[in-house]
């Protein structure tokens, strides 16, 4: 029962974070040993101490590098326990995360790419062993944290994108388009819960045939890349921001069931298979690989949230999923270009087929997760 209270409190915290990312929180009782300070530079990740007591642990992350950085705390299998994204140079941000005894990894990601600069992190203390149900409760709480972190980045990135469009700065808007979408694509199955908000934000030109106006990201994408005219795009941009704000609030208030997590993980890969491999999603900008990577990351986050349950009930499935995720990451990794990705139309048919094969290989075991969770 205690877990459920924590969950509710966490949800409230999430709403606060979405609105104002630097809102200071009163110290939690478990905080006795004090915050763990983390200094991130472009080449190093200095964590003040590598051990702390179980409970609510606060990380104070400062960025003294020149690149925008991120800080992650991972449990086994790269399950995200907590993260702060988009820490601009010079800024300090806080991460609060509820931790039970065990071994974890800290990671700074200067430039916001790759696996990051890792360090071992140990949590000690007498946390009571979780029951099976508590594990699932923790899974949803863990995924809730993920949603919060993504929406916390989605909103400012959308604001920047919208501002660039309205300022008529096409180059800047084009650069921001795939980045803002990354945060969107990671959590899209959650967004899809809210009916017509998804097509308003992410609908493609076909929505016109369904009797809806063509708005959102892809309308702006068309204006930017195909029509090459954003002089009249202001109202569409404004509406996008309104819709994104609404979905951020809703997503953070929503409590997902473990089954929804499992299905969400599969749906994200379905998105990849049906929209990204084919180049349908970003047909004007061809930035489909950003969305591809984001979908896979989002799928992985759902699976990792469920990991403790899966390890207990179907360890061989966890092994299969780890291998399949690694294969996807390797295949996709070949198409990195700078901080981003190659364009869809720069890939050969053989390269697309390789991506399709690794996604199919991952999606089949992922389709078995829901049944394991429902056992």
């Amino acid at each position, binding site marked *: 029962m205690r877990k459920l209270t924590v969950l509710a409190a966490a949800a409230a915290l999430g709403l606060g974070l979405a609105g104002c990312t630097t809102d200071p929180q009163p110290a939690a009782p478990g905080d006795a040993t004090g915050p763990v300070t983390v200094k991130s530079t472009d080449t190093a990740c200095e964590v003040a101490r590598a051990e702390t007591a179980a409970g609510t642990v606060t990380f104070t992350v400062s960025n003294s590098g020149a690149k925008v950085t991120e800080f992650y705390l991972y449990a086994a299998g790269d399950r995200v326990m907590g993260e702060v994204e988009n820490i601009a140079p010079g800024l300090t941000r806080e991460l609060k995360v509820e931790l039970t005894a065990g071994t974890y990894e800290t990671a700074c990601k200067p430039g916001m790419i790759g696996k990051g600069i890792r360090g071992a992190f140990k949590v000690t203390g007498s946390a009571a062993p979780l029951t099976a149900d508590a594990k699932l409760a923790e899974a949803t709480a863990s995924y809730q944290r993920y949603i919060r972190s993504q929406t916390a980045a989605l909103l400012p990135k959308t604001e920047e994108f919208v501002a660039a469009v309205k300022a008529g700065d096409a180059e800047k808007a084009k650069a921001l388009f795939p980045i803002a979408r990354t945060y969107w694509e990671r959590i899209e199955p959650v967004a899809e819960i809210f009916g017509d908000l998804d097509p308003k934000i992410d609908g493609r030109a076909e929505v016109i045939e369904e009797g809806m106006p063509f708005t959102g990201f892809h309308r702006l994408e068309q204006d930017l890349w195909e029509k090459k005219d954003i002089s009249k795009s202001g109202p569409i941009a404004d509406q996008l921001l309104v819709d994104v704000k609404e979905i951020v609030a809703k997503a953070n208030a929503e409590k997902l069931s473990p089954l929804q997590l499992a299905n969400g993980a599969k749906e994200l890969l379905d998105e990849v298979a049906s929209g990204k491999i084919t180049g349908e999603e970003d047909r004007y900008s061809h930035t489909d690989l950003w969305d591809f990577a984001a979908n896979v990351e989002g799928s992985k986050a759902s699976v990792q949230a469920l990991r403790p349950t899966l390890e207990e009930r179907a360890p061989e499935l966890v092994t299969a999923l780890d291998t399949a995720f690694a294969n996807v990451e390797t295949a996709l990794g070949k198409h990195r270009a700078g901080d981003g990705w190659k364009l869809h139309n720069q890939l050969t048919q053989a390269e697309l087929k390789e991506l399709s094969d690794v996604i199919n290989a991952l999606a089949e075991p992922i389709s078995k997760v829901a049944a394991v969770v*429902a056992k």
Partner: protein
Amino acid sequence: MISRRVALTAAGVGIAGVAGAAAVATAMMDNERSPASASPGDAVAFYGEHQAGIVTPAQDRLHFAAFDVITKDRAKLVEMLREWTAAAARMTQGRDAGLLGAVGGQAEAPPDDTGEALGLPASGLTLTVGFGRSLFRDAAGTDRFGIGESLPAALEALPHFPGDALRPEISDGDLCVQACANDPQVAVHAIRNLARIGFGTVSIRYSQLGFGRTSSTSREQATARNLMGFKDGTRNMKLEDTGLLREQLWARAEDGAAWMAGGSYLVSRRIRMTVETWDRTSLTEQEAIFGRDKGEGAPLGRAKEFDEPDFEAKGADGEPVIAKQAHIRLAHPDFNSGAHLLRRGYNFVDGTDGLGRLDAGLFFIAYQRDPRKQFVPVQRSLARADILNEYIRHVSSGLWACPPGVTDESDHWGRALFA
């Protein structure tokens, strides 16, 4: 457990009864795999000395699929072949691909059978597996799965034939599965479920649907027609030609690859026909090109389909009745050192080609003991001289070593090869 078979079988006959009957059929017909299907819905025995789908009387429909192996893990590949075998043993007997079935599993899980064959009988389904040269060694000669030494000499890459317009993306491959059935839905269901089982281990490279058999593999069957309107495969090796099958169809241990004893080599060719220009050709010319009359299928100058052609006969003009470049002459065993083939091809129409023409033709399938002595010389003589070449294009090619049959439940496809 809900089963396709149970759904279809007359009330009162349970699974055990059907399985028992199938077992008896297997035992009785083990050697020659005689027609097990008296009616189009019946099951063909899966276990036996040879794989089903070769001398099995040709069913009406085809779904042929070629796969690339995408794992480097030999054990994973073998495990998949084991799973394929188990699924094939079930599906060919009219059961679901998985043990739980299309509707028998957990509600939250995707079913282990895709379900489109629910309520359909076995429909004579046969599943025949073949291994491509690239499974043994890749283009660089690397032994991919530790079976490089087992590469049969007969699996020598086919030469380039004059006029070949092969598209690499629909040619070759590491594995193939030939699914034949009397119901297209049953054939497609089988390939779809095998592909699904294979995700992460294999990936479909290309596949081909065929809607009408063009060959008869038993004397009980009438000779079917290809899309040029001619009977095709009159001279085919047939189930009943026991001696010929022994000499020219089944590979033997002494041929070089012991694991292939009782197997056969499959050549697949997708032959596109420009049927539109063919249809503007006069009947006389059409018949001269084939060397047979169109209606009966008799060799020119003879009366009946199965009459022996007289290649020496000359007409009033002094020219041979069967032209020097007629298809029947060029392909005839007498002019190819006695080489026979067991053909099992299917007509296809894959929609249209965007130029106002049907994308139609013949998916040629031929089984033999050694392609170097059979398909290659025959195709060489056809490719050089056959007037038919004006109307056809070979666009896809595959060569496959089809291992012997799966003997029982403890056996699986490729067991001897991967032993």
